């Protein structure tokens, strides 16, 4: 008969006297009614008894020569210096993947953020990219009012084209000559 699966660990801990009193009470009550669990406890208890009796060599004694050797090695060895302690701590921390992996990931995220933040805006040398810059600086007023220029600006944005046309439309026109009868007569004479 097999023990109850959910009780196997608890039974081992009961055999090791490592179970809380309340849990132990519940488990003992269960053991009275479950033969499988009772047998499992008996087997585990036998194992622990054999292990506890298995300590070997109770009569071995460390000799004075042994102690002198230890004392000699201790004199030759110095305790770790502060630098060595810190280095060991650092090695232990870095080599522990549970710490190292999140730290590396965090460093990568911070590095990527800093690089993105400090990167200057990309300035393209293409004519299409030059148009917005020129527009922003007000140089659009100097664009020749040709279909090609209007198409390029329209490709960027229809709003920009609208703004460009409005600005060019509002630009002060050159003063036009005033034609009168006398000026027309003078012009006719000259031709």
């Amino acid at each position, binding site marked *: 008969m097999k023990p109850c699966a959910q009780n196997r660990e608890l039974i081992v*801990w009961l055999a*090791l006297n490592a179970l809380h009193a309340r849990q132990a009470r519940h488990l003992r009550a269960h053991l009275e009614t479950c033969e499988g669990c009772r047998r499992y406890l008996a087997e*585990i208890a036998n194992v622990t008894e054999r*292990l506890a*009796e298995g300590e*070997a060599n109770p009569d071995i004694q460390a000799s004075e020569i042994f102690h002198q050797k*230890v004392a000699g090695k*201790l004199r030759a060895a110095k305790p*770790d210096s502060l630098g060595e302690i810190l280095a060991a701590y650092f090695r232990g921390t870095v080599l522990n993947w549970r710490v190292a992996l999140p730290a590396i990931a965090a460093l990568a995220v911070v590095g990527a953020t800093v690089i993105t933040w400090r990167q200057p805006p990309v300035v393209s040398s293409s004519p299409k990219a030059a148009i917005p810059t020129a527009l922003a600086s007000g140089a659009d007023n100097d664009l020749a009012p040709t279909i090609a220029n209007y198409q390029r600006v329209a490709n960027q944005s229809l709003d920009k084209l609208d703004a460009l046309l409005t600005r060019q439309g509002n630009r002060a026109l050159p003063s036009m000559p005033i034609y009168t009868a006398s000026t027309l007569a003078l012009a006719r004479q000259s031709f």
Partner: protein
Amino acid sequence: METPDARSLLDQARAGDAEAFGEICRVHETRLLRQAVALCGNVTLAEDLAQDTLVEAWKCLHRYNGRCQFFTWLCAILLNRYRNALRKNRLRPASMPGGRDQDEFEKHAGNLADHAALPDQAAERREQAVLVRQCVRALPAKQQQVIHLRFYVDDSLEGIAAALGCPVGTVKSRLFHALDKLRKMNAFSAVLSDFKMKGGML
């Protein structure tokens, strides 16, 4: 967890006093050597292992935080050194039968143990103790560690957890798996049935 005298020696040793640490070693070295012999099965190698353990403990004494017995902490170092030595093939497990070192160990242990017991009883006890150690040796290293610290060093689960630098739950879990595996082992069952048949002590 330590006596006031031991704490005082420990404080002096932490301040860099090698003589004070030497006195601490004198207290623990016999027990430590027994543990090392049980692991190595070779007295010469065990002495080296125990000495190196004490020297390493001296060098990294700042890591001992007093949350477990000092001897438990020493044994955790011993077990780690032993495991590393096995990995580097410098040592051979004590339970490997048939080797010259193993024979030497058995002879040595037999001579030392059970002076009062009859030769037959002593031989049986020795043989069955070796079987138990073989079974433990077949466990994964981390499970061997908790079995050793729980049953041969006899510290609390909290002390073992502190010495190994892991949560108590991890120690309990490793103990559960280790004991469950030992229960299933044929060799261990043979020891148990033999023990039951004789109806007495190992």
